[in-house]
């Protein structure tokens, strides 16, 4: 298989993993809503849009623009889905929930892998 195909395949797998996670969470959290929107728009378009921010609300947060924590906050925003449009306080809360869901998914996937390989 060519590298492009394998890349495509791994992308699909990743999308499947995230979609399962986000589907379980539903629309309860802002990050899950943003991720759902992103995945659905990807599916509609048929390709992955290589753009940085997918959030529906494009309002820029300019409050803490001059603080030193901005770089890390930006990085965190890029990691957490939908983080672009969140204020810092909300971002922390969403990060916490996101970490919890990721951790449970990892552990469950690992457990399933263990079970499947026996």
């Amino acid at each position, binding site marked *: 298989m060519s590298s492009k195909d394998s890349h495509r395949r791994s992308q699909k797998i990743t999308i499947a993993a995230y979609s399962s996670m986000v589907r379980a969470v539903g629309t309860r959290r802002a990050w899950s809503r943003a991720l759902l929107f992103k995945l659905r728009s990807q599916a509609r378009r048929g390709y992955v849009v290589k753009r940085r921010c997918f959030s529906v609300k494009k309002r820029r947060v300019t409050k803490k623009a001059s603080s030193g924590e901005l770089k890390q*906050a930006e990085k965190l925003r890029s990691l957490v889905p939908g983080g672009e449009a969140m204020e810092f306080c909300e971002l922390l809360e969403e990060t916490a929930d996101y970490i919890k869901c990721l951790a449970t998914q990892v552990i469950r996937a690992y457990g399933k892998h263990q079970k499947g390989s026996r």
Partner: protein
Amino acid sequence: MSRALPEMIHCLNTPGNLAGNGMEVSVLERQRARMKWQQEQLQQQQNYVNENGLSMFPISPHTQQFQVLINNESVLNEFVNRVMKPDPGLDHRWPHFGKFGGEDSDLGSCGIGNGSGFEMNYAISRTASCPPAGAAAIAEVAETKGRESVLPEKLSSAVGRESFRKRKADKTQNLKVVAEDGTRNKRIKGCAEEGESKITEQNSNNKSTTTTNNNNKKETSTDTSKENSKVSDVQKPDYIHVRARRGQATDSHSLAERVRREKISERMKYLQDLVPGCNKITGKAGMLDEIINYVQSLQRQVEFLSMKLVAVNPRLDFNIDNFFTKEAPACTSNFPTAVGVSSEMANPAYLELNTLQQLVSCCGLDMGTNPPDMAFRKTLSDPVSIPETFLDSSCFNPYSTWDTNLQDLYGVEFHQGRSPSFPSQQFIGTENHYKNDHYKTTLVNT
């Protein structure tokens, strides 16, 4: 605060107190403690009154309102009358009592037009200002009117004395600011909902109506708060509804700023518990770095494990893009049933979907039914244990040295892992990074 302090500290079993920084109690915790304290005080006061039938028991307007909230209207009327009659000196301060006594059923829409009436409304939601001020006012009035022999005994004596002492020490400075945000009102609602087990239902209903009414009056309340903070220097403390911490500004901007900072620090503490190995790090910047690294590593692990799952399970060709386009609106409920239906569902991705979905929904549903702040607070105590128990029981001990080893691991893995065959040699090469034998054995087996 010999007796009340242990009670208050006991009340402060909030998860927000995660860092062992007992010195700085946040506004929210103080508020909660005060609510419980208040309730106890009022219970005691009621007992005293019922026992003794005091002719003179000057209670501040706030505690009176609180009594009404605890649906003791007859007692309130009694208080009002008794306060008014023998104490004409107090008339200039509590002139609205006559009106208030008749309208105690619906405090929110109280037709009290004057400022003090509004202050009373305001004071319902700003529970923080009530007990010490009330006790202090009582103590002061007793002193001025020469009935001190009655009151300190009747009041919860320790608290009364303590607040009196506190008042003596620093009158206007040792007050706490209760900022006014919409989030502040949400917190009050959160507190109200939490304390529902303690407070009667009518009380909480009244509180929620008053808080919603106060939400409507938010703009005017900011003005009155500034006015109150200025007025505090002139009048007696029982009229102060906004408090500034000692040595800090009473500006509404700085109040909001302080509340926001406290929220952020609370969430950082929560994240500190979530992210393993962050106990030593005490800076916001360092914590954020750790959090970022952790999120990245988790995401990489998700990808890694999902690819492994796909490789292990026999898979049919499917089109993941159709996954979302074909979805019905009620798709989530159909997932468990649809497993055996279509051939696509036999796909390992869907297997993955089902298991992950079930688990995450179980974990997620615990938090999902609560309002945001409540969810946050409730999940502070309980849910931190979830990832911990999982991590303890599972084999993923690399977290202890995850910052170096995992990156090496994933570097190797992703560099070589693009091919679908996943030859076992790669895994054996990386098994040294994992401390666990479980993982080793499975690697050898694949």
